[in-house]
């Protein structure tokens, strides 16, 4: 299994085959996998933002931090992705790098990136993460976090 645990492992475009996406008619199913739950969440964030641009080309110029409380790990995934999308719009930034930590029901994380510039590839805007096909689970290889994002 290809476990995307760093930026270089993340696809610039939806891959013909791979672990970052699954099929959905109108929208896009994203999958994040990692050795830990937190790594899976970070990979899910990379998969989400890679729909919008080639995140390998995103420079580390600004960062944001966030925190929230959520006991339900699946709802936490949706909350994490939606907060990142909202902050991206709010700050006019596109993100390429993500980190998150969990302490009980408290989640602390962040992202870094830059303001949109002309040279960055434009993919399709992600409107939000949905509860559809939402699943966070431990597998033999580690953790997997998936849901459908609305584009």
């Amino acid at each position: 299994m290809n476990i995307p645990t760093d930026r270089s492992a993340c696809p610039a475009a939806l891959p013909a085959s791979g672990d970052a996406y699954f099929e959905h008619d109108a929208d896009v199913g994203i999958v994040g996998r990692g050795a830990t739950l937190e790594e899976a969440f970070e990979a899910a964030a990379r998969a989400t933002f890679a729909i919008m641009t080639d995140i390998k080309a995103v420079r580390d110029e600004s960062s944001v931090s966030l925190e929230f409380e959520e006991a339900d790990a699946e709802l936490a995934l949706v909350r994490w992705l939606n907060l990142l999308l909202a902050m991206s719009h709010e700050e006019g930034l596109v993100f390429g790098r993500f980190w998150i930590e969990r302490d009980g029901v408290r989640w602390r994380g962040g992202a870094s990136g830059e303001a949109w510039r002309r040279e960055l590839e434009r993919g399709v805007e992600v409107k939000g993460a949905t509860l559809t096909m939402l699943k966070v689970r431990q597998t033999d290889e580690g953790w997997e976090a998936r849901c459908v994002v609305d584009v």
Partner: protein
Amino acid sequence: MDISRLKQLDDWSWTVPLAPGEARSDVKLYGNRELLETMDNKVLEQITNVARLPGLVGPAMTMPDAHWGYGFPIGGVAAFDPDQGGIISAGGVGFDISCGIRCLRSNLELSGITGALPSLARELSEKIPAGVGEEGDLKLGTAELDKVLAGGARWAVERGYGESADLEFIEERGRMAGPVPDNVSALAKKRQRGEMGTLGSGNHYLEVQVVDRIHDAAAARAYGLSEGQIIVSIHCGSRGLGHQIGTDYLVSLAKAASRLGIALPDRELACAPINTPEGRQYIGAMNAAMNCALANRQILAHLTRAAFARIIRGASLDTLFDVSHNTCKAERHQVEGQERLLYVHRKGATRAFGPGHPDVPERYRETGQPVIIGGSMGTGSYILAGSAESEQRAFASASHGAGRAMSRHQALKQWRGRQLVDELAEKGILIRTRSMRGVAEEAPGAYKDVDLVAEATERAGLARRVAFLRPKVCIKG
């Protein structure tokens, strides 16, 4: 979709036999065998889940362009009675609240402007903010944005965007009643700060089209349409504000449903009874988002007029109609001989009031409400007219688009954006975009046959075809 489980009611409608207790009401799917067979099995699963929700009146329905969505299928229609515990569902409206199409009718003929199309395409692509990461020139603070949410397209006209004559031809006369800007989160308002007057991306577009074929001459006359005429269609919605409202309420309504004892067959059907504080709170926010979408399309119509005026002397563009297709609206409908107030969810479905309905603009009242089926960039779109039959068949609802036939992922494997742009240019269709990936995902071949969807819409008695529009210029986000 495996149609072996379905029972055919007539040539253009089907149902699925459900076990006792499996649902509160029936399921009805509009379309012929070919259309249904191309749909994912999830469409049937999702609409059956909708039929389990409290307070449903009549069947839970899918339109001929239905496809797999989240919560409700896209193309799903369901009406709920607030006095019978009926619910409002954020998943039944969608993230892009009041996404819709503004259709502008020009005084131009294709034959007179063919040479100007490349210049027009360039001007539109430069002046219409489109695509991920693009902001508009208009920056609004919270106080002014609250006025947008309260006033809709009327706010835009008051600020000099477009003409007051436009308002007559926008659903709700340009302003959705019952908005509560205070129910919209600060984050949602922040997201919208730079997004008024922007097109967005994905399946959103601005197209310059030509009336290619008239199906109903009398209705076309009423709508002011003639063969060879230039039309503009603008497809977009409530942008970041609507997306954030969807985000905020999806989770809060899912938790409310659990607290209120509503068993959700799918968490994405997050809902609350209409007559509860939670339900009313979402409705107030949703109505505010509808006004945001109406204002957004009004600004884009204004920018489009300005672009035309710079390139083509004497060009004028009147609003033919503005329809939304991600909504839940309180409407009066006849049910078994009784008039009842129902909350009709239309997720990827267009309202289609028939002739004589008081909410249809006077100019079109004898004809019925214009219904717009937006097709792909390589095929075309239809203008239809709402029919009296649609009231009985589907609470006055009809299809909204061609409907996807394959996923974005599959489309990316099959097409390249640059190649598509070149092929379409050879067919006389100019595509202007900053996202070749987006073009590939929106390839004409990734959509259902729009001709068949329009025919099914007519034959199912949902709306009747008036005119077919062929694309000439497409600005994609």
